[in-house]
């Protein structure tokens, strides 16, 4: 094995990333374990977080504001969207802050730094598994939801959410190294983003041209896709989906390059 140490290496070495898959696995486990250890209630807390939001949304938007929910019971309607949204928001936030949080290790040992935000995203996706179990229980109790072949498309939507979160995380992590005040920007972006995504309301109540604008948001398709697959409402995949898909692809590719340029000297900044 020969290692060459040079100032500029324009492209990240993805084969090297594959060689470090064991580390990815260990880091994901570590993130999950560290998360559970901090929580008094353990895994129960992960299930509780979207449930609490669901209750608040049901009271405020479903009850007070009386927003329609496409004929589905409002709590189930909003929980189905909260499920991918909250995992996405956590993945974006965690991956954006992951470099700074892992500085102890980064300053001492070499490994492809890309592993760190990647692990943060994967660990956040675990929340999704837990709350999916909660959703199944909710659906069984309320009698909402339909079992169909569309469920098979769910992993695709999860992948889209993960890719979007990683793209945001990579750009934000790279920028936050230079400009520390940006570290909190992703949190604010997520607070605004939940209203730019049909989580609390149905896409069907949004008039044009606002609807077309919403369709540029990749998370629109994830959230609506979950509803379409699980509840039979929502929005099925459409050609309009290609624009955000392409945008996420571009953002992810450029994010990897920007992140790579920055990772090589990150310890000098911190």
């Amino acid at each position, binding site marked *: 094995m020969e290692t060459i140490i040079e100032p500029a290496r324009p492209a990240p070495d993805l084969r090297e990333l594959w060689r470090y898959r064991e580390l990815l*696995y260990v880091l994901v486990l*570590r993130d999950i374990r560290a998360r559970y250890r901090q929580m008094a209630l353990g895994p129960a807390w992960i299930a509780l977080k979207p449930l609490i939001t669901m209750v608040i949304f049901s009271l405020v938007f479903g009850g007070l504001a009386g927003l329609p929910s496409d004929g589905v019971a409002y709590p189930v309607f909003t929980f189905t969207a909260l499920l991918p949204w909250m995992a996405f928001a956590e993945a974006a936030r965690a991956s954006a802050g992951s470099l700074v949080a892992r500085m102890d290790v980064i300053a*001492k040992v070499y490994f492809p730094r890309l592993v760190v935000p990647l692990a943060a995203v994967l660990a956040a996706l675990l929340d999704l598994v837990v709350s999916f179990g909660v959703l199944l229980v909710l659906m069984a109790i309320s009698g909402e939801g339909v079992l169909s072949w569309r469920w098979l498309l769910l992993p695709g939507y999860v992948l889209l959410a993960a890719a979007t979160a990683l793209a945001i995380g990579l750009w934000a992590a790279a920028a936050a190294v230079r400009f520390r005040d940006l570290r909190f920007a992703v949190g604010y972006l997520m607070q605004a983003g939940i209203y730019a995504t049909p989580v609390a309301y149905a896409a069907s109540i949004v008039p044009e041209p606002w609807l077309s604008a919403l369709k540029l948001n990749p998370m629109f398709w994830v959230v609506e896709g979950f509803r379409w697959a699980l509840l039979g409402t929502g929005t099925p995949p459409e050609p309009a989906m290609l624009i955000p898909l392409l945008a996420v692809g571009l953002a992810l590719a450029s994010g990897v390059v920007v992140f790579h340029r920055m990772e*090589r000297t990150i310890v000098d900044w911190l």
Partner: protein
Amino acid sequence: MIRVEGLGKRYRIGGEPTLRALLRSPRAALQHETIWALRDVSFIVQPGEIVGVIGRNGAGKSTLLRLLGRITAPTEGRAVLHGRAAALLEVGTGFHPDLTGRENVYLNGAILGMSRREIERKFEAIVAFAGVARFIDTPVKRYSSGMQVRLAFAVAAHLEPEILLIDEVLAVGDAAFQQKSLGRMGEAARAGRTILFVSHDMSAIAQLCSRAILLEGGHLAADGPADSVIGAYLGQTESVHIDEGVVAAQPQDAPIRIEAVAITPEAVGTGDPLTVRIHYRAAEPLAAPGFVVTLHDTLGVEVVRLSTLPISGFHIERIEGAGHIDLHIDSLPLTGGLYTLSLAVTRPRVDTLVALDRVATLRIAARDLYGSGVLLTRSRGVVPVAHRWSLHPSD
């Protein structure tokens, strides 16, 4: 093997700009002063070689190891490493404080690119070497810094990397562990591994390394046999070298601190007198303190131990505030070579209040004490003895 060609690293100094400063005046925010921490450094280290890296604080030693350990990228030049490299860099160990020793061993192994099975195979040996078996399932944040360093060194040394980069970390461990680690490094080198070893401890460098490189202001100032490079570093006239870094590293909250150490004269030889002056400052009145001065040879053997109490019977009622204490040695009974001086303030038979391990290096000049024209160096024994031979053939 390590091949370094014209390696250089430039750092920006002054903090990174905030977004606000950038928006207000982009030109000023993006301008920055820079310094070259390392410049134009070239050398080759062959497999099986242990090379000591020495130089004053800020000379660029840690920067060199950070570059070779790929913690940060160089600004110019290049380096080629053949084989897997493991680095133990300054302060901290790369351990995650919330995880247990066991989890950290696996994590570190994975970071070094090892498989789970490989780590499992060596796990017992690592834990035994570090001597932390009882605490292996305790979070690392409860470990003392010495325990952390022991475990980190044990992992790095047992993973059998082809290249081992070690930056001063061993100074944290106790003397016994340092000797064990030096022994382990020697073994690793004999097994064909390549080792780069940064230390302020000249006797450790002399003991372990056949070759040393000297950095000065980021440049390679000398590269050659360890003895002559150490000589160049300590200066031909200055044979007493005080390591200010050790003095500065004392805990701030100790009941007593040593503010400075002075050793006179600056050039000493076998049989010469020597005075060690210890400036202290006690935060609170201290009853019956003991001052201890020890000398170690390059093999780590304690050859001299002097203390106020109990050895000399020099009883100090109490000390308060600042002052200094002098130790006068009438005649140094040691052959020529490198020795390190350590000192400590204790409550005799109770505990140690502050310890400055290897705070000074003495290069004792060899003398022709026996009047034979042969200079008595360490290879002629540690202690010169006034003596006479007489031959008595029985017929």
